[in-house]
């Protein structure tokens, strides 16, 4: 688990996407080729604003072991302002969440390897 997480830190801490400069489409997770432009793709790495809105959501009542202490919690599909859709935990009151709600990225803990192991940090979302 450790090396696999370590190599992805950059993409977990920040929403790093790719953008095709030929057609202006953003890709998250990042892609090396734009399927629309193919050979004409001009791919660059960009940091997304982290702002977007809730497309759909579900409230998790039966949580996996490492998330039990946070249940019930919200997992949402979020459409980011640049276009890509991301599935993430949305930290808010379960009664407060609704479709179209404005949200923003937040830096949170997403787990740890017991009391003596490594702590994982990642991007979650909170109401804007």
């Amino acid at each position, binding site marked *: 688990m450790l090396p696999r997480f370590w190599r992805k830190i950059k993409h977990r801490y*920040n929403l790093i996407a790719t953008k095709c400069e030929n057609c202006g489409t953003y890709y998250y997770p990042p892609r090396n080729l734009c399927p629309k432009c193919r050979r004409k793709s001009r791919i660059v790495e960009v940091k997304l604003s982290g702002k977007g809105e809730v497309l759909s959501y579900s409230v998790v009542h039966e949580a996996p072991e490492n998330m039990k*202490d*946070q249940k019930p919690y919200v997992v949402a599909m979020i459409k980011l302002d640049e276009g890509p859709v991301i599935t993430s935990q949305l930290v808010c009151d379960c009664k407060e969440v609704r479709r179209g709600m404005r949200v923003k990225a*937040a830096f*949170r*803990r*997403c787990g740890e390897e017991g009391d003596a192991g490594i702590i994982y*940090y990642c991007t979650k979302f909170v109401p804007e």
Partner: protein
Amino acid sequence: MVGIVSYGTYIPVYRIKAEEIARIWGEDGEVISRGLGIKQKSVPALDEDTATIAVEAAREAVSRAKIDPSEVDAVYVGSESHPYAVKPTATVVGEAVGVGNYYFAADLEFACKAGTAGMQICIAMARADMIRYGLAIGADTSQGAPGDPLEYSASAGGAAFLIGRKNVIAEVEATTSFTSDTPDFWRREGQPYPKHGGRFTGQPAYFRHITSAAKKILEETGLKPSDFAYAVFHQPNGKFPTRVAKMLGFSKEQISPGLVVPYIGNTYSGSSLLGLAATLDVVKPDERILLVSFGSGAGSDAFVIRATDSIESFEREPKVLEKIERGIYVDYGMYVKLRRKIKMA
């Protein structure tokens, strides 16, 4: 000119009232609340810690400065609740802010004044032209043992200050420190909760260090209390900063914008820095602020800060006061769960 280029803050959204803590321990909540000058305190969520608070505050500071994060050449994080005993918080912040890899970094510890110690380091480095910008952060998720008087005050929050030479919104005109070996408060390695000398340590620790540092900097700069629009003193509770202000000749009006402790508790390394941020939220060009931190063990860092014309065009929304006001109240049961005071089998 070297000084504050930008600042950012973070306060977790949960709050617990002093009354609610008193209810559990059979104390009179109103008497305690009045005695300490604390109505309620902030409580971190299960997925928040000193690193997440430091990152949020630092990101706000960098984004308000409208600089490229790669121009940040130093990151110092002061805390007494770093998530790891060994493994710096500063590197998590550096990565999350996206400063690159060529930067000076370290975690600092000096009870509640570790954040202002980071400011002094960044100021010195900026003056020496070693860095373009440096981030000095004070953040904590401090804990008091269940039933200990500290439980009413120990809270969570943090502030980040971007220090540099360009686009300075508040010049740091002077800084000085007063330090002595005073065992008023401590936590041994591996212990979950701190110990302290009780209420009798106020005089030799808090009051002696703050007044000594404040008097020294006033003497060095030739300034008097009336030359300052505002003053911010470390706030372990609501009473101490009010009393020390009076001892030094500062009025209630001068300390009131920066007195955040009644509503969020003592955020330790974040405490005087959140007070400074709340004061910068209202300061006008040319107005001076006196900042004096205090860290047990013990020491005080004093700063004379003067707002420049650039403060007017600087983005100051959302203000610290707004972040203080949006709170979600929890009861003591939820509080012990959030603070991981329940040991699972």
